[in-house]
């Protein structure tokens, strides 16, 4: 930190699941590290800047395992600078950037380029590199070189790693490097031409629908390969009750299988597509009520490890077209915490510390981000401060993202980010 070398956050309630801490505490940050966590008042006078957090939750910085920052190649949708500004506004101090850029991030060069200070990132950017060259599903990339360049996982996100042998090899190689393979679980042989979930709504709207089986059969196949290889598969944006059950069973069997769900799959169902609203079009699609209920259950019983946004910005001209031609995906960084608080905490009574776990400590563990997702002394000075009670209305027009493609425009929420500190630097202050 250049202009300030220390910040004291005082008067707040510290929730740090990794340290088993949920108490009124003050936090001292110094030189981009957590210098101390102490009882109220004990650290008084120690920070150059004092930040009053009375009534707020002080949490380890949120980590989003799944974002699309669109750089290199599609700066009309988002840049690393604008995407990380949206991340900061949403309380995320670290974002894991998917490789479906243009060109695909399948090299150490692009991986380093994305992390270069010239990109102007406001929060930490951890690239997830492509698992196969060009994400074409033919030849594995050089995982070791990608990891050395800073990649924290491999994935062909946007597409699945479909071929059995290739997935087995990917899991085996990634296991040697102790990184996960992130799978976009979709059997694309079954989903060609589909633009939403298969169900009464897709039939009524005359749209081809994606079946739950197109997701769950890939998840089940991957679990079998994890069993065979000892690798770690992380299921991206899990959306079906069948896939969730497969993950639940795999965990019981002691396999290294983790999963994330998006805030929108926890909130919306396929019937909300309404009259072809393309801000309700994403992949995986919004599912049936029974799937959403299962995902909530999966959050409550701990099967689901993390909440990740799948932040997928697209320009107006890519979304406001015929539904079947519209790009898949919605933005999500700025609405993740409000949805978690409003839906999970207020409606389903999930304790706040579980929300912090899903947004911070668990993601850090899944991608092995050392000294992150915790406020333990010596860890990185990544802190998210939020007001769990604040009521507000999200307006897409005021988003920090370059794009406006959100189904939550005009929604009223409880829970708002107050400040985001990444690496000891204030990245956002509401």
């Amino acid at each position, binding site marked *: 930190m250049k202009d300030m070398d220390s910040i004291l956050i005082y008067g707040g309630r510290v929730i740090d699941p990794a340290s088993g801490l949920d108490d009124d505490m003050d936090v001292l940050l110094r030189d981009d590290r957590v210098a101390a966590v102490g009882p109220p008042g004990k650290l008084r006078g120690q920070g150059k800047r004092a930040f009053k957090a009375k009534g707020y939750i002080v949490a380890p910085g949120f980590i989003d395992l799944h974002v699309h920052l669109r750089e290199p190649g599609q700066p009309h949708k988002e840049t690393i600078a604008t995407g990380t500004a949206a991340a900061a506004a949403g309380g995320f101090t670290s974002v894991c950037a998917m490789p479906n850029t243009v060109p695909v991030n399948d090299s150490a060069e692009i991986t380093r380029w994305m992390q270069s200070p010239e990109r102007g990132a406001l929060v930490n950017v951890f690239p997830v590199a492509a698992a196969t060259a060009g994400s074409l599903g033919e030849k594995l990339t050089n995982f070791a070189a990608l990891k050395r360049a800073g990649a924290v996982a491999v994935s062909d996100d946007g597409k699945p790693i479909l071929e059995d042998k290739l997935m087995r090899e990917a899991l085996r190689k990634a296991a040697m490097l102790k990184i996960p393979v992130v799978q976009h679980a979709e059997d694309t042989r079954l989903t060609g031409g589909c633009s939403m979930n*298969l*169900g*009464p709504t897709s*039939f*009524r*709207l*005359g*749209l081809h629908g994606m079946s739950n089986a197109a997701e769950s059969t890939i998840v089940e196949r991957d679990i079998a390969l994890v069993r065979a290889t000892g690798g770690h598969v992380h299921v991206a944006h899990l959306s079906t009750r069948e896939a969730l059950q497969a993950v639940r069973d795999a965990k019981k069997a002691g396999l290294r299988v983790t999963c994330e769900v998006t805030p929108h799959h926890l909130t919306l169902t396929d019937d909300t597509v309404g*009259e*072809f609203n393309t801000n309700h079009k994403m992949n995986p699609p919004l599912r049936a009520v029974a799937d959403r209920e299962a995902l909530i259950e999966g959050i409550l019983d701990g099967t689901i490890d993390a909440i990740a946004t799948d932040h997928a910005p697209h320009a107006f*001209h890519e979304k*406001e*077209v*015929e*539904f*079947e*031609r519209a790009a898949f995906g919605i933005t999500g960084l700025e609405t993740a915490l409000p949805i978690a608080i409003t839906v999970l905490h207020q409606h389903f009574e999930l304790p706040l510390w579980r929300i912090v776990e899903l947004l911070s400590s668990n993601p850090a563990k899944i991608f092995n981000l050392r000294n992150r997702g915790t406020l333990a002394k010596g860890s990185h000075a990544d802190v998210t401060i939020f007001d769990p009670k604040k009521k507000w209305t999200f307006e897409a027009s005021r988003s920090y993202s370059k794009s406006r493609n959100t189904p939550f425009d005009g929604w009223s929420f409880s829970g708002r980010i107050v400040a985001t500190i990444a690496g000891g630097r204030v990245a956002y202050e509401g």
Partner: protein
Amino acid sequence: MKPQLRSLLGISQLTTGQIEAILALARRMDLKRPPQLLRNRHVALLFYEASTRTRISFEFAAKALGATTTQVTPTSSSIEKGESLIDTGWTVANVGADAIVMRHPNSGAAYLLARYVHVPIVNAGDGMHQHPSQALLDALTITNHKKKLQGLRVVIVGDVYHSRVARSNAELLTRFGVDVVFCGPPDFVPEIAATLAPGVTACHDLNIALQGADVVMALRVQKERLVNKQLSVEEYIAEYQVTPLRMRLAKPDAILMHPGPVIRGMEVTSEVADGPQSCIHEQVRNGVKTRMAILATVLGAA
């Protein structure tokens, strides 16, 4: 007061009162001496998909009421150059179209257009979704032969999955108490089809479905849709073709309908298509009347 209908996009947006009003107006339309309700009005026919019947039906309807028409087709405009639907719609409206009649291969296209373009939009078929003018003209045809819709059994047989005609008809008819039976092989009539509306059922045996039917509506079956399906063309014909023998399973006074184009020898035999129970020609005539009523309604001239 009936709410003013601005665009006709799909059946679900219509109140029963609006449906009845359009049908009543259509019945009054005199094809020999049509009222000049749309003099000096311009109707654009924006057809992104091949169509003969629907296009000329709307064109005749508009001209009969005194309107001028302009056809916009992909090959003759900037559509091929990649102009967006919204931009094309804005252009068509700004050159002076008072209404746009659109046929489009993508479900929902008319809804998109209506959200952005501020002239009335008439959906002349969007993908597999809706074809409301067809459902209205079919309702007109049925009511010409049956005292009331309430309690009728209408069997819609063929490729229901891909059919906007089936969806529109089932949504309209069930609103008036009709029992609609979708019939066809499972690929064409998935179980989920029965969720479309209360009063819709799915049946895979035509001989059962036809028993007691008041109306038999055959849909076009494209041979290419049977590729890689469980049934061969021969098997489809054997199990689902509407034949004179099968028509005898329906009520004696049952009528046979088909939205066209008819593939003779596929979904129906010529004996049935040309037989005494067939209303296919009447449907075409009713199509013009119904579209006159629709255009007059959305242009506020009814």
